[in-house]
């Protein structure tokens, strides 16, 4: 028993394989559910928000890599899909080309059928451990913008963006809830530590510089709602 509250989604069209996988996962303490196709799998990911997906490639209504593509290309705004969701591919094809293709499309691990459950379980634990490290870091992703609060690095479309300390703090605050409007007094209090409403020109100047530095992508960032406050980006 070591699954705890970890939720695993099995996307597999072979009923016997799915059922026996659920039996083993539940016996190890995981909360496990199954979906048989790409569409059902994506809906289950959105509704159940699993911690990890075990993904078969040949499914009832399409190819498992289509599901993986949809997850990896999600921006976290249009849907409830987390692009960093850990995915282990379970495939009947064991060739090097197939495995390389799986990793190139963004799977975290790849197991060829038939596999032993103890080995799969060991890999599930390893992938979850890495994912836990990642989420502890608190990396935030909003569309093409990635904010790492530990290294204080910011990337837009994969390119580094250099920010001052206050600009980074402002961005970090806004990115915590990307489509919410933050009143100016809240930003002045949280970022600058002002107890009472001070001069908002400091905030406006930093927000303007931050907007310019993040102007390289298709999505506009740091939107000013006059007289109210700022939000990082528009909801889709």
């Amino acid at each position, binding site marked *: 028993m070591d699954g705890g509250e970890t939720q695993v989604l099995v996307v597999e069209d072979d009923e*016997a394989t799915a059922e026996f996988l659920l*039996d083993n996962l539940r016996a190890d303490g995981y909360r496990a559910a199954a979906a048989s196709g790409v569409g059902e799998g994506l809906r289950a990911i959105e509704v159940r928000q699993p911690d990890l997906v075990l993904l078969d490639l040949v499914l009832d209504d399409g190819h498992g890599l289509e599901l993986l593509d949809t997850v990896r290309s999600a921006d976290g705004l249009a849907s409830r899909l987390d692009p960093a969701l850990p995915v282990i591919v379970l495939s009947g094809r064991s060739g090097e080309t197939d495995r390389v293709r799986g990793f190139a499309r963004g799977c975290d691990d790849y197991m060829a059928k*038939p596999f032993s459950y103890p080995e799969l379980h060991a890999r599930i634990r390893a992938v979850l451990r890495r994912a836990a490290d990642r989420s502890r870091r608190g990396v935030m992703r909003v569309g093409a913008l990635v904010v790492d609060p530990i290294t204080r690095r910011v990337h837009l479309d994969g390119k580094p963006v250099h920010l001052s300390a206050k600009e980074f703090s402002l961005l970090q605050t806004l990115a915590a809830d990307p489509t919410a409007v933050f009143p100016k007094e809240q930003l002045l209090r949280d970022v600058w530590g002002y107890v009472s409403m001070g001069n908002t020109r400091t905030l406006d100047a930093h927000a303007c510089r931050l907007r310019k530095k993040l102007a390289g992508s298709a999505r506009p960032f740091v939107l000013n709602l006059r007289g109210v406050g700022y939000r990082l980006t528009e909801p889709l």
Partner: protein
Amino acid sequence: MTTLLAAVAGWTLAAALLWELRRRAALVADAAHELRGPLTAISLGIEALRRQPAARHRAEALATEVCRMEIAADDAAAAARGRRAVARPERLDLAPLVRGSGEAWQPAAGRRGGRVTFDWRADPAAVHADRRRLAQAFGNLLANAVEHGGGEIVVRSRPANGGIRVEVEDRGTAARGRVRRAGRGRGIAIATRALEEAGGRLISFDRPGGGRVAVAELPVERPS
């Protein structure tokens, strides 16, 4: 003109043969691929069975037999490309694997009025080999002893020459004949090749008083 016709006929025949060979190879590859799904389900089912203490014994036996099916499926897929399955060597304990093979053949031995007994006197032995190949080797040795030998089958182990020696001995009470001899030959050949791939060898000889003894010798992995 005749030469030209002969050349065209020869080329056509060669092309037809090549096409037929490719078609057959594709059929074998497809069949081998289709085995992977059910094998996965069976293997997961056995793992679930293993968790039930009363069924653990049988589950070990089934797991060993599934190993044999896996290597057979991989060999079939590789054979379509004129190869053998790629080896996946690992450090493994030999005793449970051999015992699993013995347990798998226990019901068949019982139906013939015999049984499989174990006399394991070697220390716990770790060998570096592909588990599936060893399951194939010992599965064939046990199958031979039960189907072509009969009576009490003794699986014995002893340390030998820095390695381990596993004997599979039958009493030879099963009806003998040319067909049975022929059947024994194929199983022995498969077991020999599997053991050689694991760095070992197979010797077999007649048992004084009737029956056969198959001796598998394997190198033991020393702790690093």
